[in-house]
């Protein structure tokens, strides 16, 4: 909570000048993501909301790439920006689209205030979160988990990509379960839609 107080009073320690570390690219990406998220929530037309949501996912993918999480960025770009948008558009094509006069939804005050309180509560915890890319962050400097995987991946699995090594080798049984869940999702869609064939 000392960090939160420091943020609130504006007296950041000189060792971690958070604001000074934000580059122009990062700031514009963050602004893009926040604006598209707000537009998704407030758009009156569902088709507009779906399209803006795809743009939001693309911005998130670029942000993940910026933060050097390319595996997550690829998944976000392919699944969220691509496949989910296409499936939502297909669903919209099968429903009735209502013509609206206003572009934006009228703001529901209880929902907006609840979201505002949640946002403020999350903002209070920001001070205790280590800086992005900090070598002292527990999730990075933990010798038993992260550092162990980083040092042992090539020795034990002979591949360079630690993410894939964790998914396919160290946690292979979990990944098998996830793949079967994806398969079962397809079967469940067949059952729900009363079909016997996919195509």
């Amino acid at each position, binding site marked *: 909570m000392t960090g939160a107080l420091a943020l609130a009073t504006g007296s950041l320690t000189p060792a971690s000048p958070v604001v000074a570390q934000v580059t122009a690219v990062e700031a514009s990406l963050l602004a893009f993501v926040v604006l598209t998220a707000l537009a998704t929530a407030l758009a009156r037309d569902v088709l507009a909301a779906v399209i803006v949501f795809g743009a939001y996912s693309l911005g998130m993918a670029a942000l993940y790439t910026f933060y050097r999480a390319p595996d997550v960025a690829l*998944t976000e770009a392919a699944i969220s920006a691509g*496949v989910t948008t296409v499936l939502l558009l297909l669903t919209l094509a*099968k429903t009735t689209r209502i013509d609206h006069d206003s572009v934006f939804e009228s703001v529901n005050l209880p929902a907006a205030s609840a979201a505002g309180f949640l946002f403020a509560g999350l903002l209070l915890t920001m001070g205790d979160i280590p800086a992005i890319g900090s070598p002292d962050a527990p999730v990075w400097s933990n010798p038993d988990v992260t550092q162990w995987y980083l040092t042992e991946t090539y020795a034990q699995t002979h591949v360079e990509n630690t993410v894939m090594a964790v998914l396919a080798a160290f946690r292979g049984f979990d990944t098998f379960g996830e793949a079967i869940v994806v398969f079962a999702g397809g079967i469940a869609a067949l059952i729900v*839609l009363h079909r016997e064939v996919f*195509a």
Partner: protein
Amino acid sequence: MSDAVDDTDMTDTVTDPGTDDSFDDAAADRDGSESELPPHRAAPRSGRLDSENRQGTPYTESQVIMPTVKVIAPFAFTFGLFITFHGGGSPGGGFQGGAIMAAVVFMIAFAFGIESTRDWLANTVVVALAVGGALAFAGIGLVPVALGGAFLQYDLLPIPILDPVKYGMEGVEIVGIAPIVSGVLMGLFFLLARGFNSEGDGFGNGSLDEDGSIDEDGSIDETGTLEGDAADAGGDR
């Protein structure tokens, strides 16, 4: 010559509605906004989600989208293959690569029509991808068990010359996860494009129909042989 004729027609049709629009707007203002929809809006349709006559998704041939997809699709598919095959050395893997390859099929379907893409990509391909991937993943996991090890113990895999751990993992990604993801995503796409089956030609043989719709059941049942045959022919594909 035909181009010139078309151009004059275009200009005529462009100039004419300029005068007509004012009349239409005035008429729409007088009648209320129900009479004329702007051209970018879909026409109002019935709210029933299960009626078979509106199961088809709208499709228009675009001279811009089709050549673009023709150019982009091979590269995007190669990118998906690259992401899948290079999961061990670079970001990505079977999940991401399979999703990209399925997205290529979505792209082709949006450019050339979902129904023709459905005919081109047979149901057997989609099912073989999903089921074959699941069986391959389970098989690679169970081979070490048969040899006395644990599930997915890659170093027991009988792979000659090559490194069994590395290529066992790559095998799981390439022939296991990527086909499952791409097959299931393509299947979801085609399923959603076709929509809910209210004819009862799925499983259950119409028992749901008898519970659901009340009045029109008799007429449907009397003509049910033709519809049933058509549905079976579609189902065998």
